[in-house]
């Protein structure tokens, strides 16, 4: 087990190097001079521009810039943003906020999705199942920004139940509405996946055996049906984590959450290479860790899966 984890962690190193290289290259290849955009519609003096280029190493060829950046990371220096703040500080400030938001969304999605999916699967073809189907269809077909604007309009402005945007420090009660919105993108998929999985498991031999042994439904449903239905659902929820981080960019913009998505978006617009690369790198890292955790979870859900060598 420990050897397996170690191997997985070692595999992460080339993945990380590859992604930073690719992302850095993409930021570098973005057409246009980010420093020129700093001056708005005014044209700066060429000599001043040249000096600024040197300061941010933008006068160097790509590969030199990349290694300067990489060298900095090994010294714990992620570079600085145009506003003079160390990127490491920005990372430390924004990631907790987005992770809090993503975990809240994941919990809402998982609890809601699995419960509704389970009930739907057990009552296949009944009224509840049919209405859940309709609702999930609606959510699947609506883009997230529509859901976000509508939720903000109804619950924030019309009803006044929630703050329209998230206040400083992103307290949990302010994040409830954005988390629901964020969860809604994958929530519907999860209902349908759980439902299908439950229906399939229900017809398997060991479930019929359990019924014929005379076990109660209260024991069969959670232990026999649900547990065995969860394996595809857990995999899906993990890949979801990536979708949630991406969806956070839209949601955070609309609800003004001072998290990763909003900062990353701003950095891309401003062409701040070090900020963009550092953020994406940490996101990749999180994604790798989450996938590792999921692989380990399989073993808990299905003892037949073992990690040897």
């Amino acid at each position: 087990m420990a050897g397996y984890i170690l191997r997985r962690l070692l595999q992460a190193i080339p993945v990380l190097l590859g992604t930073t290289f690719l992302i850095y290259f993409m930021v570098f290849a973005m057409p246009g001079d980010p420093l020129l955009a700093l001056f708005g519609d005014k044209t700066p003096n060429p000599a001043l521009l040249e000096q600024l280029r040197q300061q941010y190493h933008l006068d160097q060829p790509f590969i030199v810039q990349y290694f300067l950046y990489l060298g900095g990371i090994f010294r714990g220096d992620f570079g600085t943003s145009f506003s003079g703040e160390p990127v490491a500080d920005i990372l430390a400030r924004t990631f907790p906020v987005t992770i809090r938001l993503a975990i809240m969304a994941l919990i809402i999605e998982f609890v809601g999705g699995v419960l509704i999916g389970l009930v739907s699967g057990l009552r296949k073809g009944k009224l509840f199942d049919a209405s859940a189907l309709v609702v999930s269809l609606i959510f699947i077909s609506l883009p997230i920004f529509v859901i976000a604007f509508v939720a903000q309009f109804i619950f924030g402005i019309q009803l006044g139940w929630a703050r329209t945007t998230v206040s400083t420090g992103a307290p949990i009660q302010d994040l409830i509405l954005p988390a629901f919105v964020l969860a809604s993108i994958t929530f519907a998929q999860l209902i349908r996946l759980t439902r299908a999985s439950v229906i399939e498991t229900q017809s398997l031999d060991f479930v019929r055996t359990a019924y014929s042994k005379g076990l109660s439904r209260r024991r069969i449903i959670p232990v026999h049906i649900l547990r065995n239905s969860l394996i595809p659902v857990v995999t899906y929820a993990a890949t979801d984590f990536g979708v949630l981080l991406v969806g956070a960019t839209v949601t955070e913009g609309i609800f003004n959450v001072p998290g990763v998505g909003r900062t990353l978006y701003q950095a891309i617009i401003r062409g701040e290479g070090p900020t963009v690369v550092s953020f994406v790198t940490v996101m990749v890292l999180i994604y790798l860790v989450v996938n590792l955790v999921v692989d380990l979870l399989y073993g808990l859900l299905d003892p037949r899966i073992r990690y040897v060598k």
Partner: protein
Amino acid sequence: MKINRYGIGAIALIAASALALTGCASGGGSTDSTASTASIITANGSEPQNPLIPTNTNETGGGKILDSIFAGLEYYDAKGAPQLDVAESIETDDSKTFTIKIKPDLTFTNGDPVDANSFVDAWQYGALFSNKQLNSYFFEDIEGFSYEADSPLTGLNVVDDLTFTVTLNEARSDFPLRLGYSAFYPLPKTAFEDMDAYGQNPIGNGPYKLASDTAWQHNEKIDLVVNDEYTGGRKAQNGGLTIVFYASEDAAYADLLGGNLDVLDNIPASAYSTYESDLGDRAVNQPAAIFQSFTIPERLAHFGNDEEGKLRRAALSMAINRDEITDVIFTGTRTPASDFTSPVIDGWSDSLEGADVLKFNPDEAKKLWAQADAISPWSGTFQIAYNADGGHAEWVDATANSIKNTLGIDASGAPYPTFAESRTAITDRTIQTAFRTGWQADYPGLFNFLGPLYATNASSNDGDYSNPEFDALLQEGSSTADSAEANDDFQKAQEILLKDLPAIPLWYANVTGGYSETASNVQFGWNSVPLYYEITKS
């Protein structure tokens, strides 16, 4: 993406019923924070792009903070007229050498005195080549300034503690008018010890000061409290100012409607059609010091500095239905242009000779275009380049269509994905079409709209326009001490522009904003930023 009201209603209905069905309607805690902090004004802003150093801040996100925490020699009132702030007097005989006296006994909020050296040192710092300050060009008229190497401003001389003189390279009648701009703010001695640290926690002498040394919470907000030691004309009438940073104007607007924001100075385009009914008499829509145009470089075929070029430029200008576009596309949040400056600027006129060329006149446009065709027949497409990340597509397409329908030629927009990309193509002169241009004034003077844009070899003369007659009139206006006479010269210079049309004036952007029910005395300054210090809150 625009969502109209009916659309919202329909979607809302679906979403509401959906949420009710699943029973997952959220009950987020509503946190109304107005009770304990009644007199603190909250306003919208954006994360400053640069450290908060006056000579290094050239955008509004940082600018509105600096204007609140610093007091310069003068400030601009709501009409854009300069009023003395720290200065006791600014005197000159020839518009070339200025003697500036400072009011006695003024201090920064850390106790450092505000004296002649606070200004001279700050300006020297801002102008020094190796300091790479974004606003260094503001000092280019002062003797000794260099863009190539480190060279002290020899034109600055400290006479005594409270007096210094400024000598310019040549006469500039509007120099005193510029002194209210943030690049000319003073700096305390402590700033020079560690400019990086100072930029994160600036110490000023203005109506407000930072609430603590961590008041600037990056990407979230900045908390300002009243500076009781400030004695100038901008004394704060409220208990403080919190500027919340928004990534999108839509979020800020939602907060205004939701009661979390007191003043908003930029209505998002998606709300143009509804904000006046949403806010009633709390909606603001007035012209601002922002001029929008498109520039046709002279190097383009058919648009050279000759008879044909002039005919074609005039024809294009008369082919654009500015009234309809500002009405339909911008729902009245732009004002059709009648010159190259802005109605909020002293000396502006809507009856310049030749301003008819800015009126929609399809018959005359067709006639002029045909005359140009007689000189050299037109072929190809007329294109206007713009950056697609700035919400320009709609009006560029409308303008191109107006040209197309009137003149019967092919016309279209030419989008560049990002602002950086379009600016790069414009700056290195690789662009082979007309392109969108805009100008927001740094200080309220006619010259600021003309000199940097159309004078021969001027820094932002992106179309490489050059006309000795125009240059001479600018020069004349600049060397006149009397401001009315100077404005007269600038207007004559504009009349030349109306004939040559290096850029086709389109409209002035309005400032669109609004405020909450609890805020009163909300007035917007000439630069589209509310005068925060005047606002009171019940």
